[in-house]
């Protein structure tokens, strides 16, 4: 065990070490040398993670040390590696490694690859740390670490105003969720006396605290998860985050970081369960899934459609957790990470070759980049949940679990969202890869081999994973009962088929036109409403601009300048005015002085007389 502990620390440390050395080597020697450092680091990290996974026996790896002490508080840090952590770490390091390789092609024109790889490796390190740590404070540290990397990488092209704004939005919005989580950590620590996941879960299982307190703590922590995993209402940042490089979107905003919230809820599953917080998780997830699925249906940019889709699938994971099926959620997390990374990277290849993000300005790309198109199609099929691909198994499981749970609202929203995948997925594919080639498409050519290799790996994984479903689930959760409803499955597939048919007719055969629908004011309104994600972004912006900035901050500024500082300067002005009047007494005229003197004498006499 001792060896595994050190290897775990090494796995976290090697990425930070690698990130710094990649930066320094890239800065002081040839810039692209940082790529080799990154590849090497990523590979070593992945191998180490695999090693941990293979050697992880029945017992988790546990290590604990005291970070610092103040007063009566001892701040513990440590690692707790069980199968869940390892799977998350494998996703992070594996997809991270593929992403690093892909970036060589995607970022070929970039001026500062050392900065890029520094931030990327730093991110992977933080992500690995996030899944390995054993308590909430440690988790919060790495949680902020991945948030920082997300911020830096979204704003990677910082000279673009939109990128800077998107980075700001991502940071502040996730931070807004994080502070609630921070409050939750503090409350848990002070009132429950521990922040260790296992101890918290044990307390919950033992029923050692009131449900009300547990619910408060859970909700506070869940708000952090909502912010990080882009759920309603803190999701607009994820759409804007697509301003960053597509590789970043693939790794951070699809495969790993956004899953942190799901991971956190899964990690504290017994705690949430005991506190009756899961129903909230389920509702938020279902609502978010519905918003995201409909939004994806209306949007036109490749990456934003994928972002909506990411949000939807994260929401599905939350639904799975909410209805009590953690295994389905985590299994879907894994599958989603793979096929979404595939989709994003393939989209990255398309964008890199055409320099166009708007799907509707592309078309007929199949002719120019057939391999990418097919790989993209694999991703779409997995996303849509078509049987042989991995998406089908986990998504169907989630639908089944939701159905078994029995809440009609959650089930309805989830079902609609889940089947809509196929509609927006194929809409995207048909629009981008079929039809008449546009002027952007004509300059495109097949992606470089170094970009295609990671895509192939991921595509193979989407097909291979289902074969190991039982083993993976067993590795993660032991024996799990999967609810199975044949009629539900048939219904799902039928609806999906019908939806596919409609999309096929609209976007491939083009026999049905949406122009008339969109021209109608109502249709236009609905489209705009969905396109803008139910105007949540606008609402948040309005609140920030007009409530926090425009009202409160401006009011405080006014008070500060005119009341508080006004009082300070007012004292000066008052005394000046006072003594300006008083000095008029000093006329220099003897007679006036005499008058004062006599008046003074009289006053004195009066004083002596009457006082």
């Amino acid at each position, binding site marked *: 065990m001792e060896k595994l502990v050190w290897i775990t620390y090494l796995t976290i440390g090697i990425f930070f070490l690698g990130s710094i050395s990649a930066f320094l080597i890239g800065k002081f020697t040839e810039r692209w040398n940082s790529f080799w450092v990154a590849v090497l680091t990523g590979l070593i990290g992945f191998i180490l993670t695999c090693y941990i996974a293979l050697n992880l026996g029945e017992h988790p790896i546990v290590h604990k040390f005291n970070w610092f002490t103040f007063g009566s508080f001892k701040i513990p840090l440590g690692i707790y590696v069980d199968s869940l952590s390892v799977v998350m770490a494998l996703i992070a390091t594996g997809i991270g490694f593929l992403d690093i390789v892909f970036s060589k092609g995607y970022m070929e024109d970039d001026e500062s690859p050392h900065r890029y790889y520094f931030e990327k490796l730093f991110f992977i390190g933080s992500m690995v740390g996030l899944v390995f740590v054993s308590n909430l404070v440690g988790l919060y540290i790495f949680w902020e670490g991945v948030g920082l990397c997300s911020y830096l990488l979204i704003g990677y092209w910082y000279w673009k105003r939109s990128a800077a704004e998107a980075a700001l939005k991502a940071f502040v919005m996730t931070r807004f969720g994080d502070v609630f989580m921070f409050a939750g950590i503090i409350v848990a620590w002070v009132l429950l006396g521990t922040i260790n996941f296992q101890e918290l879960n044990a307390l919950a299982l033992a029923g050692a605290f009131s449900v009300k307190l547990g619910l408060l703590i859970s909700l506070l922590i869940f708000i952090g998860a909502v912010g990080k995993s882009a759920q309603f209402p803190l999701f607009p940042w994820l759409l804007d985050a697509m301003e960053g490089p597509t590789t970043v979107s693939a790794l951070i905003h699809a495969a790993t970081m956004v899953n942190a919230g799901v991971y956190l809820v899964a990690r504290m599953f017994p705690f949430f369960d005991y506190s009756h917080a899961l129903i909230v998780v389920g509702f938020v997830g279902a609502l978010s899934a519905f918003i995201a699925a409909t939004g994806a249906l209306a949007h036109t940019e490749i990456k934003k459609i994928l972002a909506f889709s990411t949000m939807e699938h994260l929401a599905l994971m939350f639904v799975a957790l909410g209805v009590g099926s953690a295994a389905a959620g985590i299994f879907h997390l894994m599958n989603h990470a793979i096929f979404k990374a595939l989709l994003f990277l393939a989209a990255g290849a398309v964008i890199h070759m055409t320099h166009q993000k708007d799907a509707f300005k592309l078309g007929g790309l199949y002719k120019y980049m057939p391999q990418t198109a097919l790989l993209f199609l694999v991703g779409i099929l997995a996303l849509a949940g078509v049987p042989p691909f991995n998406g089908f198994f986990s998504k169907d499981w989630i639908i089944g679990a939701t159905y078994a749970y029995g809440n009609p609202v959650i089930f309805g929203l989830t079902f609609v969202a889940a089947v809509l995948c196929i509609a927006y997925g194929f809409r995207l594919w048909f629009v981008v890869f079929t039809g008449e080639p546009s002027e952007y498409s004509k300059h495109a050519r097949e992606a470089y081999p170094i970009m295609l290799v990671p895509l192939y790996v991921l595509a193979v994984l989407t097909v291979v994973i289902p074969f190991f479903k039982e083993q993976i689930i067993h590795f993660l959760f032991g024996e799990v009962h999967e609810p199975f409803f044949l009629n539900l499955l048939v219904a799902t597939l039928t609806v999906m088929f019908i939806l596919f048919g409609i999309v096929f007719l609209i976007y491939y055969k083009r026999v049905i036109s949406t122009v008339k629908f969109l021209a109608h004011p109502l249709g236009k309104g609905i489209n705009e409403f969905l396109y803008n994600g139910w105007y949540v972004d606008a609402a948040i912006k309005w609140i920030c601009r007009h409530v926090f900035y425009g009202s409160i901050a401006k009011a405080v500024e006014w008070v500060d300048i005119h009341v508080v500082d006004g009082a300070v300067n007012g004292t000066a002005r008052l005394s000046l005015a006072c003594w300006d009047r008083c000095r008029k007494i000093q006329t220099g005229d003897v*007679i006036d002085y005499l*008058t004062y003197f*006599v*008046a003074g*004498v*009289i006053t004195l*006499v*009066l004083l002596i*007389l009457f006082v």
Partner: protein
Amino acid sequence: MGNVYFWIIYAVVIGSAIIALEATSLLWAAVSFVVLLSEIALVYFGLNMPVLGGVQLAIYAGGVTILVLFAIMMIGESYKKPEGKAVKAIVLSLLLLILGTFFSFLSAIDTLPFKTFSTEVLGTVFVEKYSFFTIVLGFIVSALLYMANAIITKKREAK
């Protein structure tokens, strides 16, 4: 309260004091001032303090008046009407007067016996001891007054 002589003296003192301040001609003011000081000397005599009264006559009615007269001679007359502060001054002085009187009644002075003096004694003392002195002083003062008048008139004519 005092008898009629006292109030006559009172009236002369205050009247001459007011004239000394209010007279248009500085010279007449000076004359009035001399009268005031002499009357106060008289009060001293009346209080059976002949030495004090004599000194008052000599130094005040004599020396100080002469100084004043010389000053008037050198400077000349310059009368200006009071500039609006009279009201304030009157109010203050009246306040002082009322307060002082009130204060005097409030205090316990009147419980003590108070000496009174006869005219005979006063006259005897005055004639025996100070008549010569007074006559000489009167001459000098009259001469000075005359001189001062002459000089002032000359100055006026020169202008």
